[in-house]
């Protein structure tokens, strides 16, 4: 395990709220084992806006107190076994959401606003189980018109994987703007990348367009194929067979432990 990944993991303290991206946006799978080795627990995970393998593994490792998410699954490989087990056991505090509500909460934090309004949700059991959301009458409508307010979500740390960073701390996130949204809303952002380049990504407008400025980035480490077995857009595809292998293994706690004890291919 790389020393710099291990060092990044030590920034996580018990009880923190951690934002993690959707499987196709750039999951820093390279950070999963360092996080588990570091062992800071009682984490509240925020899935932006859904979770997968990394969330399942952190739950399986016993580090997770709560999950706020619009869904957790392994995609084509089926349900997320450690998550599903934890739900059945009542072992994690679950905050079921819907994708745009998570985006709205992060946007509120990005804007420094206490909340964001959002259409939809009225009459759902998603809303009924969220005592942290509010419904008000739209003050701009003549009467009635209930609208849901989503409070700002302020994660302590965002963790994600991207194609490249420069040595000035800028990270190229391309059109995956949710990675920027996570970083804006979070106090810290820990980023792994395929490669670190020498030239300043902000120096020309073409690369600058897809760049998250260093202002929002706490630490960066190179981790080639760091999203594996997930793919990274524009770089490599998802290895679905490996997801299936995990899904089978992790049906039991013992199978999960055995899987996690295996070395990760470089």
């Amino acid at each position, binding site marked *: 395990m790389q020393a710099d990944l291990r060092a990044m993991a030590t920034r996580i303290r018990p009880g923190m709220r951690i934002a993690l991206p959707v499987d196709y946006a750039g999951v820093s799978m390279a950070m999963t084992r360092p996080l588990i080795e570091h062992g800071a627990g009682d984490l509240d995970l925020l899935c932006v806006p859904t979770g997968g393998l990394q969330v399942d593994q952190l739950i399986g490792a016993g580090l997770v107190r709560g999950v706020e998410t619009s869904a*957790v699954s392994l995609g084509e490989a089926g349900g997320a076994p450690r998550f*599903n087990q934890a739900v059945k056991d*009542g072992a994690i505090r679950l905050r079921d959401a819907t994708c745009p509500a998570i985006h709205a909460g992060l946007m509120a934090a990005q804007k420094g606003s206490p909340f964001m309004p*959002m259409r*939809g*949700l009225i009459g759902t059991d998603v809303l009924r189980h969220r005592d942290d959301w509010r419904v008000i009458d739209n003050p701009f409508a003549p009467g009635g*018109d209930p609208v849901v307010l989503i409070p700002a979500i302020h994660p302590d740390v965002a963790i994600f994987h991207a194609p490249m960073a420069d040595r000035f701390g800028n990270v190229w996130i391309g059109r995956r*703007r949710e990675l920027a949204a996570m970083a804006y809303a979070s106090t810290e952002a820990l980023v792994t990348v395929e490669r670190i380049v020498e030239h300043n990504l902000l120096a020309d407008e073409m690369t600058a367009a897809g760049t998250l400025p260093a202002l929002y980035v706490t630490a960066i480490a190179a981790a080639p194929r760091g999203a594996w077995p997930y793919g990274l857009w524009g770089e490599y595809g998802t290895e679905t067979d490996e997801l299936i292998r995990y899904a089978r293994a992790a049906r039991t706690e013992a199978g999960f432990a055995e899987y996690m004890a295996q070395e990760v291919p470089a």
Partner: protein
Amino acid sequence: MTGVLPRETLIFTIARLLEGVRLVAVGAASPIPAAGSMLRRALDEGQRQVRLSVLGSVEHNFFTNGSAELFDSAGQGRLDAFFLGGGQIDGQANVNLVGAGDYPQSSVRWPGSFGSAYLYFTVPRVILFREEHSRRVLVEKVDFISAPGTSPKGVYRPGGPVALLTSKGLFTFDKTRPGFTLDSVHPGHTPAEIAEATGFAYDAPAATPNTPQPGPATLSLLRGRVLTELAETYPAFAADWRRDLAALAA
């Protein structure tokens, strides 16, 4: 009508349901809705532009503002149609994507509501698509409402369900009643079989027609251009389809 595969009937039906759309979005791992949307696009070529976004796809995703942009486009009224499945769907078109049994400690947990609690409200033409047609899926009342089929007066609701398509038949949804009406039965199935497999009450005409089948021109578009386009994103599904076509020809 022989010579048409069951999946081709489904794809053609979806294309019919999408008549007139400008922008349709398809969730990840949804080859039949994607194929139906591609067929719609092919049929409308030269007359109107149909845009298609497949979530999670790099190839068929023209969004550039992260995963929020789909929901934003719905909020802007630009997204005309979307597909929803559901672990449970009930007779009021309520959809449950969360789990069976008591919440939160569901006895069976599904992934979660995804964007349904928003898109069902904002997208004018939501097509409920679930191949499994059983009393397990099509229930009297869902255990958890990820998204409700209808909303009381005064609730902002430009969107909602228009139809429910399964492997056995097609229902339309009437939001004033509210409830489903059996619209057509796919070849090889019967109204009685559907009644047996459906856990909720619905209206049905005295004689339910068969689901329309694609004509030769449409079929050739489907097996040519659409199958080729689909294969880029869903190679496994496309290979299956080609295998079935080979068997049909044999």
